[in-house]
């Protein structure tokens, strides 16, 4: 039994205008919950796109559960990896349950649309995420927090062992941020779901992820527990801002405090 969910060997990727990822080695065990952090443009989204097979690595190889992503069919990848993208909108008046049902697409066949099992999975994932009461609502009418939960439910309906999320808490208020992260932590612990999420909020990342990977200019510059990764020197070198790191008074995980220059309120 393979215990490694993802193995990336010296992966390099560039869009036409320059290198975005350089020589990235990354190994994620099954059941891990990994936070990807780093400044804008560091390559977090690109890394997620490479793992989900949307982009092909220029050099190096990526293995999903021991299989080379380049050799896998899209429908096979979609049964291994689900993705919650950063931006998401749906044209026309799709109902919430219809959007969640789209997560079952990898299991559908032309003559046999969806089965009783697909229906059960959709109902169950909507309950898990707590959007059962929204089932008949129109997706485009929902608030940002509700939409994010619908997209999460759709990804969970794919019933994959690996879930990738690109800034799942961006643009959400703190109650929705905490709700989403609690849900992910719960799925990780009880559902044995392997999770990789790009995160902007360093303190939330520190509070919820046991392992953080810090990217800068397309390279991994720190990888380990929040205590190892969130130090004032690594943060200063990645983000070029002075910060103070202090332990959380209740939980003890490192917290990042910005240091305003002379213009701040003292």
């Amino acid at each position: 039994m393979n215990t490694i969910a993802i193995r990336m060997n010296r992966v390099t990727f560039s869009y036409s205008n320059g290198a975005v990822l350089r020589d990235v080695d990354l190994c994620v065990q099954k059941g891990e919950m990994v936070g990807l952090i780093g400044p804008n443009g560091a390559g977090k989204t690109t890394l997620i796109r490479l793992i989900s097979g949307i982009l092909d690595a220029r050099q190096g190889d990526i293995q999903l559960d021991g299989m080379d992503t380049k050799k896998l069919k899209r429908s096979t990848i979609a049964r291994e990896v689900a993705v919650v993208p950063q931006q998401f909108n749906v044209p026309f008046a799709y109902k919430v349950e219809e959007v969640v049902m789209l997560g079952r697409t990898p299991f559908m066949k032309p003559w046999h649309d969806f089965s009783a099992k697909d229906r059960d999975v959709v109902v169950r994932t909507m309950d898990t995420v707590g959007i059962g009461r929204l089932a008949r609502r129109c997706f485009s009418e929902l608030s940002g927090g509700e939409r994010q939960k619908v997209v999460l439910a759709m990804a969970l309906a794919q019933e994959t062992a690996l879930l990738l999320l690109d800034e799942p808490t961006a643009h959400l208020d703190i109650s929705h941020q905490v709700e989403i992260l609690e849900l992910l932590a719960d799925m990780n612990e009880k559902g044995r779901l392997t999770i990789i999420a790009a995160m902007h909020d360093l303190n939330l990342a520190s509070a919820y992820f046991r392992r953080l990977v810090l990217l800068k200019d397309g390279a991994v510059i720190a990888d380990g527990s929040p205590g190892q990764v969130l130090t004032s020197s690594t943060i200063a070198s990645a983000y070029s801002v002075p910060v103070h790191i202090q332990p959380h008074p209740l939980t003890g995980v490192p917290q990042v405090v910005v240091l305003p220059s002379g213009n701040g309120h003292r």
Partner: protein
Amino acid sequence: MRDFVRRRRISVILLLLAILVICVVAAAAVGTVYVPFADVLKICWNKLSPFNFTPTWRSVDETIILQVRLPRVIGGALVGAGLATAGVLFQGLLRNPMADPYIIGTSAGAALGATVAMLLPLSMAFLGFGMVPLLAFAGALATVFLVYYLARVGGKTPVVNMLLAGFVVSAMLTALMFLIISMSDKLYAKFHSVYAFLMGGISVAGWGQIAVIAPIIVVGILLARLWAFRLNAFALGEEGAAHVGIDVERSKTVFLALGSVLTAAAVSIGGLIGFVGLVIPHSMRLVLGPDHRALIPCSAIAGAAFLVIADTLARTLHSPGETHVGIITALIGAPVFIYLLRRGGKEYAL
């Protein structure tokens, strides 16, 4: 999906089918010579089954119904079904509510083809088709190939490129068409027939043409329904569709080809009938929601019924003269659509 949704869809399909059958029979009954509704049914029955009614009608009526009106009515139904289905495919694929069967240039290609055909001698024919339908069909398909080729960069065909290429190629082909018309005395004199093609009008001469067009359109609709779940995934955007396991570039090519063949087959016998491919998909989406598994069959049937009604009005409003069916589709289609939009309004995000 709940059971009542499924039951509702089936009842909508059955209702639409019933409406279509009534429309077809009624359309065959009316015209310069009125044949009673019951006689039309009996004539059809006699033709289709071994058990026969004793004819109480004139044999000339039977000839009118079987050889003149029914081919035309069925032709209209096929054109309507093809255009409405193509509209659903293009709107779903391009995620663009303004999309219709002609959006990537099929109309301009077909018009140019038809114009060139009118320069050729009348006697040329193939499979019972004159040169106008043949070159309209070929022109529409050739244009799609050209647009697809122009829009392709690095193994991908971005939707924006396709829309822009379609727009530019359409403009060029339309200009070319008018250039040909203005330079040819023969066409200048025959401008009325070019105009008739542009405004749309069902032209079917007997069952031979139906026997060719019907399989293309019916198979096209069935394939579209078969792959409808893939079209649903395109609602997530191309990257989102890939995330749920769709081979995006391949599916895009397939749906594009399907929509284009349906459109080309429809315009070859119907000319450029507007509005059906835009309004019917939107109307059905308002009634049924955007799930393509229901939308495709219902739009096909509703499109067929709608065009049968419009074509009947076109040929009876000032009989024995004929109006262009495209005028009727716009005149009925627009108000119906506005009504549905105002009524369904809030929930329907165009």
